[in-house]
């Protein structure tokens, strides 16, 4: 069975059923009308103006930070970044110093960050997909209670788990390695990941899954060939969330891995960039931008999935 053939049976069934064909157009028309109203409201020039103003207001601090990161220390101290046209002294020293100024170059921490982030995104998503499928499409006793229990886990703040988890890791003898960071991020991400992916999966019309089952597909086939293609936006949007959270995380890395160069991610280094007593503060803006580059690329690259993923939940209905 190919992907294209999967949605066909329900469509042909609908065509034969007269009651459905009459109701369907009217409902679609209502949705269309609502969408048209929303579109005209959203595309009025005033709305655009407000949107642009908000976008500018939100971008100004980032832009100021970017300008500051290129200015020499004495300039930053004596004048604001907006005086750039009158004080055109720009330098790459801050970047040079932030990247290569310490005994361990920032590249090492960059690599650590990547090594931490990729498994910490892939592991929870893989596990959550399986769990979400079971909770959504496999009928077993206590399913609702289990789902609520997982959902409720989101209430536990990660701060209260830090010390118990760390003592556990210490007694297992794995503290201070990548393993504990991957494990911890997976633990913290799973409740939300299962919840979100479960809701996306529930949104897929049951007839689709039933039709596949009628055609003789088992759970594995349904999961990989029917559901997975439809879930891509949901997976991508959760992957962005998880990526940003892990990439920007300082607390988990600092507590479980510590600050040694073997395992410390970029955030740990950037937090210490200004020196013991904060005298190297001019490096912070450059360090922040170096750390920001990767999430920015990931976000821009996956943006279309992100929007589609958010829509996937809202348009239905």
């Amino acid at each position: 069975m190919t992907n294209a053939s999967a949605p066909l049976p329900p469509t042909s069934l609908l065509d034969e059923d007269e009651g459905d064909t009459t109701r369907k157009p009217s409902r679609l028309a209502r949705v269309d009308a609502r969408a048209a109203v929303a579109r005209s409201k959203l595309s009025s020039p005033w709305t655009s103006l407000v949107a642009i103003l908000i976008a500018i207001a939100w971008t100004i601090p980032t832009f100021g930070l970017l300008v500051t990161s290129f200015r020499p220390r004495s300039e930053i101290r004596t004048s604001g970044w907006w005086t750039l046209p009158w004080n055109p002294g720009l330098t790459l020293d801050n970047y040079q110093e932030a990247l290569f100024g310490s005994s361990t170059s920032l590249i090492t921490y960059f690599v650590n960050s990547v090594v931490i982030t990729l498994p910490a995104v892939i592991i929870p998503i893989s596990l959550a997909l399986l769990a979400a499928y079971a909770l959504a499409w496999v009928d077993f006793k206590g399913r609702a209670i289990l789902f609520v229990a997982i959902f409720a886990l989101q209430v536990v703040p990660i701060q209260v788990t830090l010390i118990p988890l760390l003592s556990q890791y210490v007694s297992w003898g794995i503290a201070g390695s990548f393993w504990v960071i991957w494990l911890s991020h997976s633990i913290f991400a799973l409740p939300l990941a299962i919840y979100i992916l479960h809701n996306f999966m529930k949104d897929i019309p049951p007839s689709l899954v039933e039709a596949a089952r009628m055609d003789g597909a088992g759970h594995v086939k349904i999961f990989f060939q029917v559901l997975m293609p439809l879930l891509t936006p949901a997976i991508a949007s959760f992957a962005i969330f998880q990526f940003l959270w892990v990439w920007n995380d300082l607390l988990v890395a600092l507590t479980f891995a510590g600050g040694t160069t073997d395992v410390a991610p970029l955030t740990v280094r950037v937090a210490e960039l200004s020196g013991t007593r904060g005298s190297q503060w001019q490096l912070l803006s450059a360090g922040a931008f170096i750390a920001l580059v990767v999430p920015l690329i990931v976000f821009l690259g996956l943006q279309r999935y992100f929007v589609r993923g958010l829509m996937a939940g809202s348009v239905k209905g």
Partner: protein
Amino acid sequence: MNGTRRRRSYLAAAAAGASLALVLTACSGGDDEGGGGDDAASDVDCTAFEQYGDLEGKTISVYTSIVEPESVQQTDSYIPFEECTGAEIEYEGSREFEAQLPVRLQAGNPPDIAYVPQPGFLASMVADYPDAVVPAPQAVIDNANEYYTEGWVDYGTVDGTLYATPLGANVKSFVWYSPQAFEDNGYEIPTTWDDLIALTDQIKDDFPDAKPWCAGIESGDATGWPATDWLEDVMLRTAGADVYDQWVNHEIPFNDPQVLSALETVGGILKNPDYVNGGLGDVQSIATVAWNESANAIPDQLCFLHRAANFYQANWDESLTVAEDGDVYAFYLPGESADDKPLLGGGEFVTAFADRPEVQAFQAYLSSPEWANAKAEVTGQGWLSANSGLDPELLQSPIDKLSFDLLTDDSYTFRFDGSDQMPGAVGADAFWKQMTAWIGEDQSDQETLDNIEAAWPAS
């Protein structure tokens, strides 16, 4: 530079997880710099290290609040120990040290050695985790008694047991000034408190557009600490060292009348619109100006006096020379009279959480003059120790030399930073916040002290 590169090779070896012999590491370092590592090894005189024995293949983890670039000087100063004994030091610095160390202790994952910057923190760790903190071994006790004054040894002692020895030291009773400005205007370095106030008034009259003093107490989540130093310094001068000790140990209440009069004296400068805030704004601006940015008006002669520790030297613009005949320098914050010389300072304490022989050996090394001298040699500026075996000729910055002279001069009465000795709820919380409110919100003297007294833990 040489040391920096060599250090990197150690870290690389650690990263590979291989406990290589140190000779090998030195050789691998030599690959990219033409055998420089071998030359350095033969330079080190290992006779002083024989007492520590052969520690080949042993690793000692060190956890501190000292991060780069200062940590490079730390790790460089361990090289003689590493090369002579064969042990390897795994250094980890974090600015979150004070929050993370209790977490590690509670989770059973302590480092072998930590440098604790506050005696109060040390005391609370001994109280909370009596099994985790290991008392100092005999070799360390001997070193402490031989090379440190009784006062310093006492700060590392909890309930009669010596736990920690001092590592670095700093001196806080300094007033930074511009020697050029003083020379141009014929100002003299004041030697009594009254002279200081007279000088302040003279500057005020001579420069109506400038202000004599400048200050800033903003320091992230530790905002307010420079103001606590002000109060402690003045407290030592108006009430004396004995009352200061009683105040720090809470034998007299925090809002005792003697503290109130000290705070009024501080307010006479910091809350006097005629005296502050040179080049920065009004009295309230003190609360929002970053402490390490607050004296920048001194070279511009918009501000003339700035009370700050010797480590403020790292904050000056690189183009300024710190020297008595340079652009900026500091004089001793005078006492009530020329003979009354209290000295406020601070430092870190080497605390051990393991009693393995290599850890004890490293602890002994850190309390020895060999280490103090090795550290001074690799440090450009901004470090000194209270170790009397330290050779002052090795200190490279004039202000460090001056600090060391004051620390080792018996006519000065040394007292450790009071807020560092108080319980955390006061010394690292209420004291900071109330002093910030005292300046930023113009809270009254009495209310400020009452609020801090109320925050003192009951036990």
